[in-house]
């Protein structure tokens, strides 16, 4: 049995943050998981009370708390709506680290995180291999969405309609890139991110195209690693730290003004999670992390704030494609970025932006949450689908590849004919004309 005294002692480190919750319960209004289940243990207040219980040694074993703590999308809706300003995500991730340290990771997570993710090159090879073989196991179901489902009943894939691995991941098309500061006077580091590299390489291509059109110099080192969020959210601090260090080593080799990513989750992780989770590390690592996280920007934010969007001549705008936008939680709730991606979309006169109801409600993806709690994740996703349908649009854009995956899954399962794109793709289209 786990040493409850020891866990209580470790939890004490969170005490000052835990007592900030006044149990007002307002998080119930915005939690996507609670909306589906109505269970207090699923909402932030309940989870904070459970961690408080661990701290006060109210449990004989930590399993029940650990299990409930993991039933969370880490979408940050509660934190964004919290009257007392509880640092919910920070508390949850730190608590997961404490409990994972005590109870060990599951075998599957160990394999994924410590066997694969932590070794960026090996991870790349395995995915390349998988891309070649996926046709054997899956069949296309929706050409417009580019989704597939399993060819035969598979316990791993259940009824999922997933966007397949790219035939050619981005790092095979373009392993690295070094261009000088252009006329814009700016040079950026480009952090690609796993999902964009391996599933949506067209988003990386579009990003590079846009940066070039704006005469922005690019530094994109080869063999980039994962940002570390799957490890951090599973409480695997060792893997998380190794990935941060790997990426620091890569990006510190050359000078640039800003680090940009086209993935909402990567931006939020580098900007918010890196400094918070590594604050107790040796001073020089803290300083290195601080330096890079301070100059990290979401691509839309960068375009609007640092270079300004180009005016595109309207051609063929008689029948603009109507498009709606979904706010990724990690952009709007974590980083406060919601106007910028919309402005980027509007910059293409071939599209007409029309808001869906509840555009900023979570799509239900939540990374590994989707793998562990596919039913709840799908229920949340179905609500997103209804809202997308209600917009009456033909296309939906969102600034996060994880949301793109989830939205493609829920739309495809309902046989909807929809195009799912990243705003930067829409903008790149305009610049190409």
């Amino acid at each position: 049995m786990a040493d409850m005294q020891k866990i209580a002692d470790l939890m004490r480190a969170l005490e000052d943050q835990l007592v900030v919750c006044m149990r007002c319960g307002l998080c119930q209004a915005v939690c996507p998981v609670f909306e589906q289940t109505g269970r207090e243990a699923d909402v932030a207040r309940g989870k904070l009370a459970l961690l408080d219980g661990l701290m006060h040694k109210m449990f004989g074993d930590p399993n029940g708390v650990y299990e409930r703590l993991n039933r969370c999308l880490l979408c940050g809706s509660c934190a964004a709506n919290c009257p007392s300003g509880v640092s919910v995500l920070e508390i949850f991730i730190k608590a997961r680290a404490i409990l994972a340290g005590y109870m060990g990771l599951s075998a599957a997570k160990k394999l994924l995180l410590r066997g694969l993710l932590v070794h960026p090159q090996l991870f790349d090879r395995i995915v390349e291999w998988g891309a070649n073989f996926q046709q054997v196991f899956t069949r296309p179901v929706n050409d417009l969405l580019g989704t597939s489902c399993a060819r035969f009943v598979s316990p791993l894939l259940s009824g999922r309609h997933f966007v397949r691995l790219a035939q050619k991941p981005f790092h095979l098309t373009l392993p690295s890139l070094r261009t000088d500061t252009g006329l814009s006077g700016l040079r950026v580091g480009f952090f690609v991110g796993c999902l964009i590299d391996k599933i949506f390489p067209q988003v990386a291509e579009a990003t590079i195209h846009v940066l070039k059109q704006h005469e922005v110099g690019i530094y994109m080192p080869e063999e980039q690693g994962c940002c570390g969020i799957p490890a951090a959210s599973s409480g695997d601090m060792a893997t998380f730290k190794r990935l941060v260090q790997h990426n620091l080593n890569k990006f510190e080799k050359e000078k640039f003004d800003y680090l940009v990513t086209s993935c909402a989750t990567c931006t939020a992780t580098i900007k918010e999670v890196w400094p918070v989770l590594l604050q107790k590390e040796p001073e020089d690592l803290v300083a290195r992390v601080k330096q890079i996280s301070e100059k990290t920007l979401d691509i839309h934010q960068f375009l609007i704030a640092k270079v300004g969007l180009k005016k595109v001549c309207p051609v063929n705008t008689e029948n603009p494609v109507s498009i709606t936008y979904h706010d990724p939680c990690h952009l709007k709730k974590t980083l406060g970025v919601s106007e910028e991606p919309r402005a980027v979309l509007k910059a293409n006169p071939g599209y007409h932006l029309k808001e869906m109801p509840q555009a900023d409600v979570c799509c239900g993806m939540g990374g590994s949450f989707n793998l562990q709690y596919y039913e709840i994740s799908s229920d949340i996703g179905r609500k997103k689908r209804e809202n997308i349908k209600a917009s009456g649009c033909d296309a939906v854009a969102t600034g996060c590849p994880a949301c793109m995956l989830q939205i493609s899954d829920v739309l495809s399962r309902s046989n909807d004919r929809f195009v799912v794109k990243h705003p930067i793709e829409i903008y790149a289209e305009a610049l190409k004309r």
Partner: protein
Amino acid sequence: MIQKGLLKEFQKTVGAANVFTDHADLLTYSYDAAVLEPVLPAVALRPTTGEALSKVVRLCNENLLPLTVRGAGTNLSGGTVPSAKGVVVVTNALNQILEINEADMYAVVQPGVVTAKLAAAVEARGLFYPPDPGSQAVSTLGGNVAENAGGLRGLKYGVTGDYVMGLQFFDVNGEPITTGSRTVKCATGYNLAGLMVGSEGTLGVFNKITLKLIPLPADQKAMMAVFDEMENASETVAAIIADHIVPATLEYMDNFTIRAVEAYSRVGLPVDAAALLLIEVDGHPAQVEEDAQKVVSLCKKFGAASIKVAVDAVERDSVWEARRSALSALAKLKPTLILEDATVPRSKIPDMVRAMQDISRQYGIEIGTFGHAGDGNLHPTILTDRRNKQEWEKVEAAIEAIFDKALELGGTLSGEHGTGIAKSCFLEKETGPATILYSKRVKSALDPNNILNPDKIIG
């Protein structure tokens, strides 16, 4: 521990997935929003139908298990803190709006409907459900009725109880009791709905609630008046009411709260001001215009340093943003926040505001005062750290002093948060021993085994 047979019966009644006995789940039903010690129940149940709810009540009574009904658990007086080894019945699966009748202007709801959801649903049809407690985004209508919850609009529109036309509730045997009607007038039988409003789950368990709706006001105007002297602000409140103007909202904010809000949200509040009044008048456009002018001139007459009338929706929103963020802003200052709601006759607002400042000084604790000045319901908000035992003792003494002052001024211990556990020991001070005895007789006649939310209100 609940006996195995009974547990099976519960599972059969509400479905196995809606029966919670894990220690971790039970801990999450051991508290509400009041600053009190949590109490662990033996089981939590989440019925999905009225029939299941009725059977749960009967089973609890037959097995002598204390039963506490819980909506969103936002109670500020401990009314939803369960009894040790009791049963918590969560109503949030009973969340259907059963009817919105535009012709007869009423709505019928299940108890777990969220207040703001009903308000939005009726507003979409041009109707208005005015009670707007601070927790309306999550609070349930069953909880609102059980606590007789109020809100910002109490002065003109009243509180939850003023909108309850009828109820169907289960008595302790699970039998359905019907009271009230869908008619505007109803003079049959005892006014049991009146008894049930504010009864905090001690006399029965709601199944259906019929609520009065009114037409949505056509227009409104918001304004913010700044005062250099706290007395001037509170006298202005008294003057507006004496002039027979009834604003929809008439909110007060003291200097401590103003500074907290400004530091938190930077909306541009005057941090040197002694007090602010946030006022909104609503109704027919002509009336709104006239009332707004009268309010402006009264504010000036009673010494407002400045007054700003919102000219459009954006400005109106920024006025209310300041008020909405008051609690959040205060909450961020210290770990523990105690939100009191002692209420006085509205003419006594100046005395009450002064008393809060005296108490804050006398006990050496921080109190921010804001709230519904127009209906005499201020929220002295105490900021502390519960882990600091010495300070906590001072806080408890200060709370008692606030209660004493409110009663001395002819007021009440609670305007809208209910008695619960937190105030039950003070109730006799307000009402007297005969009232307590009478209440206890009512309780024991209707709930002889004392299983319906025991220990609340009358102790």
